[in-house]
């Protein structure tokens, strides 16, 4: 589904350019759930921006379903690390924003937004502003907003990083449920090893300067019931941890 081919990305003025990516390749197949983990600053957010069509690689290209990405694509949902919600819009208005800017007919929108708000447990706070919500609620709003557009690809940049452990686990289950429901491809960035192993069928361990794939861990058991309590889960976490540590020496 996603083909990143020979991508290079450099930031900064000529002369003091920093290469974040150099001839980087990656492919993600339809329906897959990919998780990227790696040291801060290695370029995870940058890669998501490229996949989302918000940043043009200096060289190379990204194709989704065989089409080269030149700008944001209708069926891609993007959940950012921070600042994703608009503080001046209520929950309901935030969630329906994507439908509004696309000028879709209103009555259909309303029932769709209602359904998604209900599903995300946000009906009781629909008229609240983001500043009045908890961190977990905020991330559910961001998720709800992406879901209103029926995405077939969901890009998520540390969506759960600001949450307490239990809220985090609840939302991980929610993400899992959404992903298992249909043929949704998801690419998630996280700093949490447990989260990577819990959600990622395939885990990319990245290294920095420029970004490279240090290792790929196949993790097909991700999403199976009770996985978190198994011995295998624990072993995978240990494996990912040592790969990460190996990359830093």
């Amino acid at each position, binding site marked *: 589904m996603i083909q990143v081919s020979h991508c290079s990305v450099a930031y900064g003025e000529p002369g003091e350019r920093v290469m974040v990516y150099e001839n980087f390749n990656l492919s993600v197949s339809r329906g897959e759930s990919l998780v990227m983990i790696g040291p801060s600053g290695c370029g995870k957010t940058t890669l998501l921006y490229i996949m989302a069509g918000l940043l043009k690689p200096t060289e190379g290209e990204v194709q989704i379903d065989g089409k080269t990405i030149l700008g*944001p694509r209708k069926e891609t949902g993007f959940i950012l690390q921070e*600042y994703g*919600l*608009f503080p001046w819009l209520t929950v309901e208005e935030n969630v329906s924003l994507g439908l509004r*800017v*696309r000028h879709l007919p209103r009555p259909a929108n309303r029932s769709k937004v209602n359904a998604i708000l209900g599903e995300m447990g946000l009906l009781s706070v629909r008229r609240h502003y983001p*500043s009045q919500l908890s961190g977990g609620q905020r991330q559910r709003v961001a998720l709800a907003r992406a879901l209103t557009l029926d995405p077939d690809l969901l890009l998520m940049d540390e969506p759960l990083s600001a949450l307490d452990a239990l809220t985090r686990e609840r939302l991980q289950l929610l993400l899992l449920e959404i992903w298992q429901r249909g043929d949704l491809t998801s690419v998630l960035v996280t700093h949490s090893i447990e989260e990577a192993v819990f959600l990622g069928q395939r885990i990319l361990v990245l290294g920095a300067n420029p970004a490279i794939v240090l290792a790929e861990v196949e993790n097909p058991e991700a999403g199976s019931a009770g996985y978190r309590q198994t011995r295998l889960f624990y072993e995978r976490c240990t494996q990912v941890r040592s790969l990460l540590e190996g990359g830093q020496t």
Partner: protein
Amino acid sequence: MHQKASAQARGYLWAALFLWLVWELAARRLGTPMLPTPEMAFTATLRLLQGNLGEHFWVSTYRVLLSMTLSLLFGVPFGLVMGFEPKVDRVLAPLVYITYPIPKIVFLPLILLLLGLGDQSKVFLITLIVFFQILVTTRDAVRKIPLETISSFLSLGAKRIQVYRYVLLPASLPDVFTALRLSMGTSVAVLFFAESFATTKGLGYFIMDAWSRSAPDEMFAGILAMGVLGVALFILTDVMDHVFIRWQHVQR
């Protein structure tokens, strides 16, 4: 909401009482006819309201309101574009920086010559001054918006032009209102100045005229009216603030 309004009303009441007291004491202490007591000023105000003080008041109000509206209508869009389009900013910013600090008041004779002695020249002068304050504030407010906010909006499939209405405008409104409050003082001051020249209408004229006729109680009636105008403008701004940026006033 109701409680807040009544608390606010009480605040104004206390402030008015306090100022009355200071005024009263100062007037008695100085004992000069140049500073009449509050009673004298109020009596004069009531008497003059039978006459044409009201008319002068409305003329001034109209001039300020129109100038503020025009400044917003021009200042905000220009500020948004300059904040969001670096290419436009590179061309326009030097122009703004060179012209902004020049005291526009020095052009009053020229403006009077070109636009006449009526409303137009006053409105033009105030707008010319306030416009810059709104423009610069709006532009800087846009620059403060995190890029992530704009990216997340674009990722929803929005067009670049929609960023103005859905992101830049609402995000900069709180700062625009701050600029509006600050400009209020400026605009009343400029209004007074503009009205004290070659005109026969407006509170500025009224005050200067009372002064030249050595009628201090009437002069203070004019000053009171100007104070009322200022307070009314602030209250109006606060009300609009609550209507247009409700999200800043919710309980957290």
